[in-house]
């Protein structure tokens, strides 16, 4: 357990010293701040546009960090051969993977918190209402980002960074279209299309479960029961992916 903490702290420090993170935060600030300007151009629903755009910006930047830092979590260590000296110390491969994941998860959590604070400050300064439903949406955005990180990390244990990023982006897009996939499978006359769509429906995570931005923008609460169920789904899926990553990683030669 101590080794996981040491790896996680170092991983956290690595991203903290990475300029790209600050550039992304700056970009998030621009998007959130820009939502106020966009809101002033509309006649009605000024508040909804600011809220929608702010939540979308937090979601977008969170997922970008998850995918592009997530795919490098393991593959960068292997490509740069830093893993040789790490695994030569009394630490298991599972401890290494979990430490790396927790380090990035902490950075993502901190970033989402910073963006949420910027968002609330923007709402407050623009005179829009601040309510708990926004917190619910951001909590599920964070869980989605952690799940996407687990997907990126899973693929990076056995494929290149570019391939892992491509597959993760693909799974992210499909993950938001799973209900459509089921619909296509049911309506399809072609057996192959039906099998592929059904397979994708069961294989890809249903990320729409973690998307309550629309309700939050309208001020609707999804409730604690929904939050707990959706979070459990996200954590379970991420846990399965991490278990798979550990199994593959244990067998790898470096």
């Amino acid at each position, binding site marked *: 357990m101590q080794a996981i903490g040491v790896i996680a702290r170092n991983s956290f420090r690595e991203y903290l010293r990475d300029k790209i993170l600050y550039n992304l935060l700056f970009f998030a600030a621009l998007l959130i701040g820009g939502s106020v300007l966009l809101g002033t151009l509309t006649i009605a629903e000024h508040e909804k546009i600011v809220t929608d755009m702010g939540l979308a910006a937090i979601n977008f930047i969170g997922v970008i960090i998850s995918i592009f830092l997530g795919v490098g979590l393991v593959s960068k260590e292997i490509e740069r051969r*830093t893993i040789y000296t790490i695994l030569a110390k009394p630490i298991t491969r599972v401890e290494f993977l979990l430490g790396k994941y927790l380090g990035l998860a902490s950075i993502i959590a901190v970033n989402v918190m910073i963006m949420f604070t910027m968002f609330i400050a923007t709402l407050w300064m623009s005179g829009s209402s601040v309510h708990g439903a926004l917190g619910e949406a951001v909590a599920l955005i964070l869980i989605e980002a952690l799940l996407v990180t687990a997907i990126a990390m899973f693929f990076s244990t056995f494929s290149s960074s570019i391939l892992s990023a491509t597959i993760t982006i693909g799974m992210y897009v499909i993950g938001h279209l799973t209900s459509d996939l089921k619909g296509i499978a049911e309506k399809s006359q072609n057996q192959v299309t039906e099998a592929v769509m059904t397979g994708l429906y069961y294989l890809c995570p249903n990320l729409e479960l973690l998307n309550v931005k629309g309700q939050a923008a309208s001020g609707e609460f999804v409730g604690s029961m929904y939050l707990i169920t959706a979070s459990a789904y996200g954590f379970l899926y991420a846990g399965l992916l991490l278990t798979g990553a550990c199994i593959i990683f244990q067998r790898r*030669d470096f």
Partner: protein
Amino acid sequence: MDAIRIEHVSKTVPSGWPGQPPVTILSDLSFSVGKGEIYGFLGPNGAGKTTTLKILMGLMQASSGHVEVLGAPVQDVRIHGKVGFLPESPYFYDYLTGEEFLRFYGRLAGLGRADLERRVPELLKRMRLEEAKGRHLRRFSKGMLQRVGLAQAIIHDPELVVLDEPMSGLDPIGRKEVRDLILQLRDQGKTVFFSTHIIADVEMVCDRVGILHKGRLLATGAIEDLVGDGEAQTVEIVSEGKGLDRLAPVKAYATRVLNRGNRCLIVLPGPDHLDDVITAIRQHKGNLVSVTPHKGSLEDVFIRQTSRAM
């Protein structure tokens, strides 16, 4: 108990092309390294040295055979608490400072706060990195990176130190520093196992060597035993006088004769006919300057063994 025991280890990897047979990297490798020894693992590039070291450190799994490190199977990572490792041309986290880097590896090795407070400054001083302790590794020179890499390998005071080409790419001063460190480790009773393709590195510090070529161990043993196996001894005679190269014993037994003005260098393939040649030189009123017997070098052994295996 041996520090390292490798028994009948083979390693094959897929060729990468469908239908092609797998590629053999190591073939039935067996040897052991005793505690307190400095063992040099010598072989040309591509011989399988790094693969052997990776198997020893659990970074790669052997296809067959058995590997023990300090009496424990290599799969047991707890044994890494007693082993230090420096890979070839290492790359480290360059966003860390020298001090942060050593603290990180010390914590990974399980050192407590008190041990870290003592070991980190001690190693920074020993590796002449005190002034660079607050500098990021991305600003370190190659020699400094090698020294800080060696420091992380020994931060937990391991019993066994495994080094992959530790002197590769270093200048003469850097090479001497690494050699001195290896000798210091032996003085402290540690076992050092290192790979290299540079024979001089091995001759200067090793108690025993192993010669690896194309994944097979061609020879292993003490340098004196390998070198002094009765082969490749020569004797060089330097003498002054005219016409020495035309003497009958010189013509009959010398493998090489070089005339430089009044001086003549005669090379005999061994000491067998030395007396005959010296007597002939004296009878011819020649002046004997020197007689130097040359024992075979490790290089001779290495070239002979690897050419035989071609």
